[in-house]
């Protein structure tokens, strides 16, 4: 069953399209990573999915309903980001109680154990928390609410390394016990790579790639070898990324559509095939130029 469906989704701010005909579907109980560089509309997209803002055009469906201003979506979706507003008059433990009253699947025991584990003082106020602590607390709300659709927008902002690891582990464990549709947006794949099933790559407000993480790992391959030889193999192939490695050696990333014979031939020619890490591939794919930052310096 598809929980989230987007078809030609467009959102314009001041006539500038942030989302530009985005089309994708997300199945139930999958963990999907929403990857893209800063400013490609990830936040806009998740806000539309959570029903906070309205799309300009196109179709968007969450639980087969239009999410904007929709109570059903609001009750079954939670968006966790560092912009969550909590009333300044309430203490942390009161915020948990409020959340409990709103979210039907709320797990208070989990929330309190997490609060204790991350050594929050329940009588503190949300405003007084530091950036990383705010993210941690918001994440606790997000996990304990057990919403059918849980959207985490840059959830680890400001968290230190140990908390980050704990957080992803907690997310994974809770997901296994209570499967639900989770969408994690991040500009960095490598830290969430291990827990993702699917990756949705966005560039310029459009879906660039929507693959499972295992497919993504085999989606592209890097060729490394003498420039002239490698260049020959790049002919008629769409080179995703290339970099000069030392003198006369070229490193180039292309879509892995080599046949077995191709590969053997290339190997004989001195070309080395290197697997491309999914996170690197995402960086290469979302770059506007083939050479990355190097292009700026090479003229």
């Amino acid at each position, binding site marked *: 069953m598809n929980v989230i469906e987007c078809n030609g989704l467009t959102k314009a701010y001041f006539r500038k399209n942030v989302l530009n005909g985005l089309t994708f579907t997300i199945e139930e109980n999958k963990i999907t990573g929403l990857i893209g560089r800063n400013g490609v509309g990830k936040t806009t997209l998740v806000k539309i999915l959570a029903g906070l803002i309205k799309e300009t055009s196109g179709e968007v469906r969450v639980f087969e309903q239009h999410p904007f201003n929709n109570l*059903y979506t609001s009750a079954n979706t939670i968006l966790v980001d560092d912009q969550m507003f909590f009333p300044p008059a309430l203490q942390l433990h009161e915020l948990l109680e409020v959340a409990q009253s709103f979210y039907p699947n709320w797990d208070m025991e989990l929330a309190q154990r997490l609060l204790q584990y991350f050594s929050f003082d329940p009588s503190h106020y949300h405003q007084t928390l530091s950036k990383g602590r705010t993210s941690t607390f918001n994440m606790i709300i997000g996990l304990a609410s057990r919403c059918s659709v849980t959207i985490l927008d840059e959830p680890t902002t400001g968290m230190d390394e140990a908390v980050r690891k704990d957080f992803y582990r907690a997310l994974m464990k809770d997901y296994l016990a209570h499967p639900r549709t989770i969408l994690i947006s991040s500009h960095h794949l490598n830290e969430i790579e291990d827990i993702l099933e699917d990756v949705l790559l966005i560039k310029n407000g459009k879906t660039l790639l929507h693959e499972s993480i295992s497919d993504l790992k085999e989606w592209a391959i890097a060729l490394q070898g003498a420039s002239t030889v490698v260049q020959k193999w790049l002919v008629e192939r769409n080179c995703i990324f290339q970099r000069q490695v030392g003198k006369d050696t070229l490193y180039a990333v292309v879509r892995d559509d080599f046949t077995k014979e191709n590969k053997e031939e290339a190997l004989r020619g001195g070309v080395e095939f290197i697997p491309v890490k999914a996170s690197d591939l995402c960086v290469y794919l979302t770059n506007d130029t083939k050479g990355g930052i190097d292009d700026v310096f090479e003229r």
Partner: protein
Amino acid sequence: MSSNVSLVETVKKQYAFKMKAYIDAFSSLVGIQFIAFLFSLGGGSSSMGTSDGYHFELKFYSADLVIIFTFIWIFVTAITITTKPYRNQDFTFVTNRMSSSLSNILFLLSASLLGAFTAVLSRFLIQTVAYFLLKEDLYIASVMTSEMMIGITVSLLYVFWISSIGYFVGTLVQIHKGFALLIPVIVIGSLFYDGFMQRDAMLLDTVSILFFRVIDGPVCD
């Protein structure tokens, strides 16, 4: 795993949430009424003396000022809850725009009720302090229970009405910031305009008719 929610249920939950979250409004109510209470104790006296040996002094006590201050309080409170941080709080939890507004209205109604009730009762506090602490001899206008009820009800309606004006103004300002400038300009401008045209200020007339006109014939005997 997804669950259905009804509008009524959501409004109830949001109302309960707001009564907790907007609690600071109630502390400021107590503060503002206390200030009005102090003013009421001090103000409102006039005197007259004659050459042949008489000096008369007159002092009025009433909770009118407390009620007026309560109007100001609810107006500010109503505007405050339309501002962005307050709206965003709603959307952290389960809501849509309808339930958010409905629960705001319920909250304002509750706040108005509390404000009107305490404002009208503060008359007894003023009276008690004037008598026991200031040792004043008092003439006290009689008030029957039914009249107290009328007083509380009428005050409630006024306070709630003012809150709706505040909520409306606040919402306009949220739609476009220009209203924050436009509304005071219209209000103050109309006073000046009527002044230039050498006539009574329409706005003040309206207000005084609304608040101070005695409705003909006693409603309760």
